[in-house]
């Protein structure tokens, strides 16, 4: 029991500690928080999710950081500024890979995807801002998991937007 009580916190927090979100992830979250005057939702047991992700590696994912913002339509969004705020927050240390802007119901929606190589893995920083919600995801992927993004990036964005809608 004593061993279990020692191991459990390690399982929950060790992967998060060794692959903590990059500064740019936090800066993008802060940029969205500032733009919409709100905070991301608290996601319970994120440490557990990362422990599972670290060992099971679903779809080539090794680590996941996620921030979700909801009810943005009620918070007076600043369409014209948000994409440039995100670009400024990411800075130059990530490769800008893909940016898509679309209009839906007279509201701008943005997807910005950045990449960075980390040893044999690739990190993706994916930000989506829609009328009602926004998500910021930093994910560490093995090379095979990058296939969808690299070979047909537009389809990957559409797939991603559908996931959010669902």
């Amino acid at each position, binding site marked *: 029991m004593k061993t279990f009580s020692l191991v459990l916190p390690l399982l929950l927090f060790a992967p998060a500690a060794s692959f903590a979100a990059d500064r740019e992830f936090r800066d993008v979250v802060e940029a969205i928080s500032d733009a919409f005057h709100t905070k991301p939702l608290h996601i319970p047991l994120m440490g557990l999710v990362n422990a599972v992700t670290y060992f099971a590696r679903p779809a080539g994912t090794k680590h996941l950081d996620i921030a979700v913002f909801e009810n943005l339509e009620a918070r007076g969004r600043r369409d014209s500024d948000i994409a440039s705020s995100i670009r400024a927050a990411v800075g130059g240390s990530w490769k800008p890979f893909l*940016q898509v802007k679309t209009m839906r119901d007279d509201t701008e929606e943005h997807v910005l995807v950045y990449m960075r190589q980390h040893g044999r893995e690739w990190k993706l920083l994916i930000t989506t801002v829609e009328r009602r919600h926004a998500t910021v995801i930093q994910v560490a992927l093995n090379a095979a998991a990058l296939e969808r993004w690299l070979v047909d990036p537009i389809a990957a964005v559409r797939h991603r937007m559908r996931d959010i809608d669902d």
Partner: protein
Amino acid sequence: MKFALIIFAAAGSLAAQEFRIPSSFDKFATRAKEMVDVNLDGSLLQLAARFLSDSDADEAQVKKLVSGLKGIFVKSYEFENRGEYTEADLESLRSQLKGPGWSRIVGVRSQRSGENSDVYLRSDGNALGGLVVITSEPRRLTVVNINGSINPDDIRRLGGHFGIPKLDGTGNSKKNRED
């Protein structure tokens, strides 16, 4: 020393032939109602090529094409209104393509639809060094910059991959044709 100067000068002239979408185009990101901006540099492109199948005939051809490429850059804008971009904006692209090594191989002008397409090819000696497609319509502007060795006939095969719109032999996008 003289040799080093010649090499330096040659490298400079090659660098001058590189096509870049001007930073002034950033303004269209806020003006456009739809925008796609894809940046696949050499390392990402070669990584992507690894995932294309050798057994699928279409993918195998694309994989072979990609092996000679150093980068694919696509910017596509769709505007709500006409006149969001000017002839001067287009000239900022075309002026780069008048330099040594570049030649316009296709130019299509449509009075009816207002759609104009130009395909430019860059040759580095005997080898093909890159290809640029500029398609402009009253409410749409697309620039595809493929850096590396590519045959103009092969651009159709790359359409639909790596964020490149599906194009016909003249550089016109199929989506536009369907409209």
